[in-house]
C-alpha cells in the first residue's frame, strides 16, 4: 500500500512506491524536528518577552547542564540523518544503479529541440532492426514488463521525466545513458522535459501509453514497418 503517496499522481512503476516511501519517511523524520524547533522558538518568544521577563539572565552557553540542550539534539539530528541516508541510498541503488537481467526489451529515447523521439524494438524485440517502430512524442510500453531505456540527446541537455513513474534522467549529448522502467497500470501518462532546453522547453509534453499485452501486440502489428509491408 502506498500510504505515503503525496503526489496526487498514480504510482505506476515498481519503484514509484519506494520513492514515495523515502519522501514519506523524510517527512516524518524532518517533520518532527521542524515542529519541535518551531514550537520551542515561539514558546521562548512569548515566554521571555520584556513584559514577562524584565531582566535577562547571564548565560554563557558553556555551562554543561545547559550546553546539553544543544549537544544532545545535535547528536540526535545525526542519528536521524543516518536513517535517511540508509533509506535513500537503498532506493537509489535499486532505481539507478541496477539494470534488470537481459534479455529485456530496450527502447531508445532521444531528446531534441523540441520533441521526444522514441524507437521501439517492434515485434522481434530487438533494436536496430528493420521492424523498429519510430514515433514522436508517444512512447508505448506493455504492462508488467521491464524495459531498459537508452537515453540520448541530439543538441542540448534535456531531461526525460515521467512523474507517474517517479522517473527522471537528464539526457546528455554525446552519451548514451541507460536505466530501467516498468509500469503496472494501463493508461496514458505524461512525459515531460525537465531540463531547460531553449525557447520550446514548454513544448515537449510527451505521452506514455501503457497497454496490456494484447493491446500492445496489436499496436506493434499495426505500426511495424515490416508487418505493414507484408500486409501490402
Amino acid at each position, binding site marked *: 500500500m502506498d500510504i505515503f503517496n503525496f503526489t496526487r499522481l498514480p504510482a505506476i512503476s515498481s519503484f514509484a512506491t519506494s520513492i514515495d516511501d523515502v519522501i514519506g519517511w523524510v517527512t516524518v523524520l524532518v517533520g518532527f524536528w521542524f515542529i519541535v524547533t518551531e514550537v520551542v522558538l515561539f514558546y521562548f518568544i512569548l515566554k521571555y518577552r520584556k513584559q514577562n521577563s524584565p531582566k535577562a539572565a547571564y548565560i554563557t552557553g558553556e555551562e554543561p547542564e545547559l550546553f546539553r540542550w544543544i549537544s544532545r539534539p545535535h547528536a540526535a539530528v545525526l542519528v536521524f540523518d543516518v536513517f535517511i541516508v540508509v533509506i535513500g541510498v537503498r532506493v537509489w541503488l535499486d532505481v539507478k544503479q541496477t539494470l534488470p537481467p537481459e534479455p529485456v526489451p530496450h527502447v531508445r529515447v532521444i531528446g531534441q529541440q523540441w520533441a521526444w523521439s522514441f524507437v521501439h524494438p517492434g515485434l522481434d524485440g530487438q533494436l536496430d532492426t528493420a521492424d523498429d517502430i519510430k514515433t514522436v512524442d508517444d512512447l508505448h510500453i506493455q504492462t508488467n514488463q521491464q524495459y531498459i531505456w537508452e537515453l540520448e540527446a541530439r543538441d542540448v541537455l534535456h531531461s526525460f521525466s515521467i512523474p507517474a513513474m517517479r522517473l527522471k534522467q*537528464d539526457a546528455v549529448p554525446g552519451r548514451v545513458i541507460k536505466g530501467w522502467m516498468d509500469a503496472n497500470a494501463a493508461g496514458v501518462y505524461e512525459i515531460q522535459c525537465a531540463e531547460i532546453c531553449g525557447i520550446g522547453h514548454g513544448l515537449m509534453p510527451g505521452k506514455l501509453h501503457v497497454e496490456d499485452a494484447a493491446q500492445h501486440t496489436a499496436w506493434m502489428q499495426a505500426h511495424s514497418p515490416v508487418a505493414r509491408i507484408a500486409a501490402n
Partner: protein
Amino acid sequence: MAHAVDHAPAHDDHGHHEQSFFMKYMWSTDHKMIAMQYMFTGMLMAMLGGFFAYVFRMQNAFPGMAVPGFGLVTPADYNMLVTNHGTIMIFWVAMPVLVAAFGNFLIPLMVGCDDMVFPKLNRLSYQIFLLSAIVLIAGFFVPGGGFGGAWTAYPPLSAVGVYNLTPMGSSFWVLAVALEFVAFLLGGINFITTSMNSRAPGMKLYDIPIVVWTIVIASVLFMCSVGPLIAGAIMLLFDQNIGTGFFNPAMGGDPVLWQHLFWFFGHPEVYVVLLPTLGIVAEIICVFSRKKLFAYQTVLYTMFGTGILSFTVWAHHQFISGIDPRMANVFTITTLLISVPIAEMLFVYIATLYKGSITLSTPMLWALGFIATFLIGGVTGIYLGTAGSDIYFHDTYFVLAHFHYTFFPIAIIGTYAGVTYWYPKMFGRMLDETLGKIHFWLTFIPFNCIFIPLFFLGLWGEHRRIYSYELFDELWKYQGIRQFATVALVVMLAAQAIFIWNFFKSLWSGPIAGPNPYNANTLEWQCPSPPPHGNFAELPTVYRPPYEYSHPDRKEDFWPQNSPV
C-alpha cells in the same frame, strides 16, 4: 601600522574640510561610502529582479495576457526573465548587499579602525562591480535579446548560438558574471585582511563580533571556490565566440564538466550569502533579548565546519545529470551531514532567547522571521539531498520553493534585518517603527503565501521554467494555485513601497538616534551616528567580548567592549 597602509590622499583629511561632491560620492575610498554605493546599487538591482519575477509570474498565472508594464511575454522573454531574475538576485543583490555593503560598513567600525586596509582596492572593487551590472543590463538590449538559458547556464544550450538563439546576449551574460566575481575577489581581500590585521588593541580573536567572523569566513569560501568558475566562464566565452569545444561532445568536450565547475562554486556560494545573514541575526537577537550569545566558540567552530563541509556537497545538484550513479551515494552522505551544523546554528540562536528579555522591535521581527522560515528551507533540503527522493523532486517547483525558502530569508529578510538595525548608525536617525512593522507583516505573510503553494505544485509533479502549463493535463488543473501565488507576489512587491517611503522619510524627519540607541556593546555603537570620515575620534581599546549583556557584576544591562571598567 595597520591603520596606515595604502591610504588615499582624500583620506588624510579626517573631515577637516569639505570634499567635492565627486570625491565624496563617486570616487570615495571611505568604506562607509563604498558600502552605501554597494547597498543602493544592490537595492536598485533588487527592484529590477523583483520586476522580472512579477512579469514571469503573471505570465505563469495568466498565460498569454499582456502583463501591465511589460506587454505580451514570448517564450524567449519568459526564459530571459527567469534566467536574469535568478542571476540578478544572487549575484547583484545578495552578494553586494550582504557581503559587500555590510562587510564594508561594519568591519572597520566593529573592529575599531578608521578604514579598510586597502581603500583604493575597495574603490576599484565597487567600480568593477558597477561595470559588471552595466554589462549585464546592456546584454538585455543586444540583437537577439538577453540570455535565457537559466542562471546555471548549462552548455551546450548556453554555448551554442543556434541552440539558445541569443548569441550576443549569452556572451554579455557570461562576461558580466565573470566581472562580478573579480569585483568580489578584490573586496574579499579587504574583509579578511582588515579583520585580521586592523583590530583595535585588546581585541582578541574571540572578541570579534560574530557578524565580522561570518563575513570573513564567507570571503574565504568565495575565494577558494570561485577560481574554477572564473576558469569555466572563460572557457564558455571561448566556446561561444572562438570555436573551442570545452563543453562540446562532438569536439571531445563534455557538457557535464561545466556543471561540476559551476556547482563547485555554486554550492559554497549558498553559504557565502548565508553566513553574513547568520551573523546579522546573531547581533540582533543578542541586543534585543539582552542576552549573551549562547556558546560563542561553538557558533564559531560550527561556522568553520559548515564552510569546510560546503566544499564537499556540490554534486547533489547533479544526481540525475548523468554523473556516475555511485557518486550520488557519497554526496548524499556529505549533504545530509551539513544539516548537522546548520541545525546546530539554529538551536544556538533559539537557546540565546532562553531567559532573555525580548523586545519585538522591527529588526528583531526580521531576525526571528529569518529563523522561523529558514528552518523550512533547511528541512526541505533533506528531501533533495537524499538521492532516492531527488529522482522525483529534481527540477520541480519543490526545488524552486526550497531554495526560495533559503534565499529569501537570507537575502531579503536578512537584508531588512540588517538595514533596519544599522539604519540609525548609517544615517543618524531612527526609522519609523510602526511603518517598519507593517512592512514586515506585509512582506512576511505574502512571502509564505507565494512559496508554500509552490512546494505542493512541485510535489504534484510541476517541472520548472515552463512558459505555460496549458499543454500538460496533469498540471493545468492547478492553475488556481499558481494564480494565488502570483497575487501574493504582487501584494508583497507593492508592500515594498512602505519600506522605501519609511527609508526616505526617516532620512529627513526621523528622530535623532544618538551614538547608541539600542544600548549595544559592539564598537560601531561607540562612535557618532553617522560616523565621520575616519570613524572614531580616538581609536578604541577593547577590554571584553562583544556580548556581555545583563552581566551580574554591572548595574546597566550592557557593557561596551571599549568600556575600561
